[in-house]
């Protein structure tokens, strides 16, 4: 059995002229929660849809629970749960109907658990889906997904429209599911506070490319932004750090590194003059990538936008 619940290699997907995914290689270890960050149109939803087998890649490969994302055998498809953007049942469907629909596909579907989730938000099982609020709809869909007790759960902005209390309850439920079942979850969100709450690992994608993928702890403590002017000869980063991602911005190359046990002064000394090193928090790092501009500020450990 592979150690990875999801593995993609040079994954690409075109929609006409638009490259929604462009050579994305990503491996998600089993038993982790990966939060997928990226600006609108970065390719997050496309990636999840390919993993779910709803659309097929134009290039590259994607393996989900060791099976190709396309042509998943029924046994594998039943072990994956998905809550998608623009992927909702018809308005006339009641939670009971959705429960029956889901139970037919997933052998591990736990009806009692689903009903318990609905009870927590005082949701009637006979109420038509179309009459629910946006937050209630997301709650029902995520509850259905978690009640499957899936090995892999793909959640595309599951907390969209939820109030803060419901959002906390939802992420607690996701965390409990992953811990209790040794499951894997991939969650996309635009709310960085949610990432801090739930993530084991963080991946940032932009324009269909993986910009950065690292454990949350590393991002908090060890990630630095290195700015290398074009006039400077490229330093050898491999000795001092692991490269997490990079972008080219005008005459400057921006590289995000994870320090290999060295402190900032050691890294700065080894990379030489002309190279700037900055400490970056998750929010600043995300905004830097989303807005295609580097974190600016002092190089003494504080960052500003």
């Amino acid at each position, binding site marked *: 059995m592979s150690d990875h619940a999801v593995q993609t290699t040079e994954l690409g997907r075109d929609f006409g002229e638009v490259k929604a995914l462009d050579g994305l290689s990503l491996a998600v270890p089993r038993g982790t929660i990966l939060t997928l960050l990226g600006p609108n149109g970065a390719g997050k939803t496309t990636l999840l849809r390919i993993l779910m087998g*709803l659309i097929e890649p134009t290039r590259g490969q994607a393996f989900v629970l060791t099976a190709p994302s396309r042509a998943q055998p029924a046994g594998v498809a039943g072990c994956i*749960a998905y809550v998608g953007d623009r992927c909702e049942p018809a308005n006339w469907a009641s939670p009971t109907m959705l429960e*029956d*629909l*889901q139970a037919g596909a997933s052998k591990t579907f736990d009806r009692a658990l689903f009903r318990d989730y609905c009870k927590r938000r005082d949701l009637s099982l006979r109420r038509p889906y179309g009459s629910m609020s946006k937050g209630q709809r997301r709650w029902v869909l995520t509850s259905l997904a978690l009640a499957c007790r899936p090995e892999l759960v793909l959640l595309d902005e599951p907390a969209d429209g939820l109030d803060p209390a419901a959002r906390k309850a939802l992420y607690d439920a996701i965390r409990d599911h992953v811990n209790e079942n040794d499951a894997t979850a991939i969650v996309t969100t635009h709310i960085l506070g949610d990432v801090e709450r739930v993530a084991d690992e963080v991946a940032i994608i932009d324009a269909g490319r993986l910009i950065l993928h690292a454990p949350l702890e590393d991002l908090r403590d060890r990630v630095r932004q290195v700015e290398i002017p074009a006039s400077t000869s490229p330093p050898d980063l491999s000795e001092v750090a692991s490269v997490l991602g990079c972008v080219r911005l005008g005459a400057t190359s921006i590289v995000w590194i994870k320090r290999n046990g060295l402190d900032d002064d050691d890294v700065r000394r080894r990379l030489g003059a002309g190279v700037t090193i900055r400490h970056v928090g998750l929010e600043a790092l995300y905004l830097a990538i989303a807005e295609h501009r580097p974190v600016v500020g002092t190089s003494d450990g504080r960052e500003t936008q």
Partner: protein
Amino acid sequence: MTPVRWGLLKVLWRQAMPATAIGALGLALFSLAWPDVMTPRDPWPGLIVLAQCLLLGVLFGRCESPSFAYVYSRGYSRDALWGHMMLASALSVLTAWLVAGLVVWTHLRSLLHDRLLHSPYFPIMAPRETWVPLVWLGLYLLLVPACHYAWIRRAQPTKGGQGGNFVVVGLLAALLVGFDMVRYLDGWFAWLAGASYVAVVACLVLGGRVLHRSLEARA
């Protein structure tokens, strides 16, 4: 062979309800109200059957709608989805057909036209109509897989979008001409026409099943 998943069938059956209503109401009204003796060449049943089958194709084939993506992302295999869609279509068709058939076979039509409308044809001509609903069933048998094949073919990610429609329209036109010619020809040609009908239905069903495995839910 996939066992019947009642939860999925229930959702698909509910999804097909507008088409079922149109077929059942249309054929029942025709059976009750048509003043002449019914024949297989009456145009209205053909149009009602076509409308129901087209609507079934549209209702099940909205591959860019969120509800389509929802059903397709529940974890069912493509073959299971396809099989249940065919089953739901068959139930929709049988419902409409049985409602209309019962109007004819229970002599409700004959009684209505004899007692209330004082038609000179009834009840004498009623026995000549009893087999006409079977022709409608034959038409359903051809049009359901044809309409499903058209949308499945259109939803193929890497192929020209409208090719499936042309294939289906061409096939149906050829078959209609073939059926019309069968009236004038006996013997082996009639058998050949019958065999080609079965072959076309089988090809549409099998072709749809194979192509359905690689269609995309593009919501």
